[in-house]
């Protein structure tokens, strides 16, 4: 698996995700935002977490229009895999690769804490190492992760099974109390129509090590490697 991690000015979790990908066995290269092409043979394009362009204007807005995003769009259109984590999810929404927007957390504060997610389905390239309905313990660290979409979009996402992860409690129950940021339907991550693009707010890449919190995040990267 060849993974290209795209670095924008202000990205800051590119090292974290590269480490998780390498741990799972991927061959990782980094790509600068001003580049216009992905390295030949790229299977997976990764938009890492961070504060691209300072998150000024709107989170992910400026990065969503960087020249490298044309290459990412083309890669996705060919059916290539794209993973956007946190700021990467915001960039995917801003660039039109995923629907909806990520607004300010309902509590208005940045939140960094451990968070359980329910894995909605395990028949995608990103989740086959998990069980459907499994609760996984990962981390969140964001100020603007409140997923909002219009009713029609939301109905389509739900109807097509495009919700990837929901905020849940440790038993996998999706409750208002388990929703850290006000996201509609507790949505923590969604897929594109063809299920080859995933955007999610939480950070599975920070839970890949028993010494540093746990290993529930590994499944996502192992799934990709098996893809």
């Amino acid at each position, binding site marked *: 698996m060849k993974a290209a991690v795209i670095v924008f000015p202000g990205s800051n979790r590119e090292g974290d995700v590269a480490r998780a990908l390498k741990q799972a066995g991927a061959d990782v290269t980094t790509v600068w935002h001003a580049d216009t092409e992905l390295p030949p043979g790229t299977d997976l394009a990764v938009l890492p977490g961070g504060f691209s*362009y*300072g998150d*000024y*204007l709107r989170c992910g807005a*400026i990065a969503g*229009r960087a020249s490298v995003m044309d290459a990412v769009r083309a890669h996705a259109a060919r059916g290539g895999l794209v993973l956007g984590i946190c700021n990467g999810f915001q960039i995917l929404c801003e660039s039109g690769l995923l629907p909806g927007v990520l607004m300010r957390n309902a509590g208005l504060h940045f939140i960094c804490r451990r968070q359980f997610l329910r894995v909605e389905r395990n028949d995608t390239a990103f989740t086959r190492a998990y069980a459907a309905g499994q609760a996984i313990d990962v981390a969140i660290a964001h100020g603007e992760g409140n997923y909002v979409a219009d009713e029609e979009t939301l109905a389509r996402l739900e109807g097509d099974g495009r919700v990837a992860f929901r905020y849940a409690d440790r038993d996998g129950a999706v409750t208002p109390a388990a929703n850290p940021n006000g996201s509609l339907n507790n949505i923590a991550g969604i897929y594109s129509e063809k299920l080859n693009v995933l955007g999610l707010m939480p950070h599975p890449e920070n839970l890949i090590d028993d010494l540093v919190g746990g290993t529930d995040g590994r499944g996502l990267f192992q799934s990709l490697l098996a893809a």
Partner: protein
Amino acid sequence: MTNPTKIRARVTVTLKNGVLDPQGKAIESALTSLGVEGVEGVRQGKLFDIELAPAEAERARELLTAACEKLLANTVIENYRIELVEG
């Protein structure tokens, strides 16, 4: 149907002169690299569209000034302006 005496106001909050605006700076260079020509400066501000219960204009202004001073503007680095819009 809107209540004719309900008050609508727009509060604009802008950075004082000389205060660094990192957002504006980033937006300016993004616009340039997106090919929008001739942009020589961008300063970003906030606006708040506020609905108030019916009140005299003067009282409404008082309330809005309090809102700005207490919360909406950081008067250390920002100026604010209140405009009452027709109800």
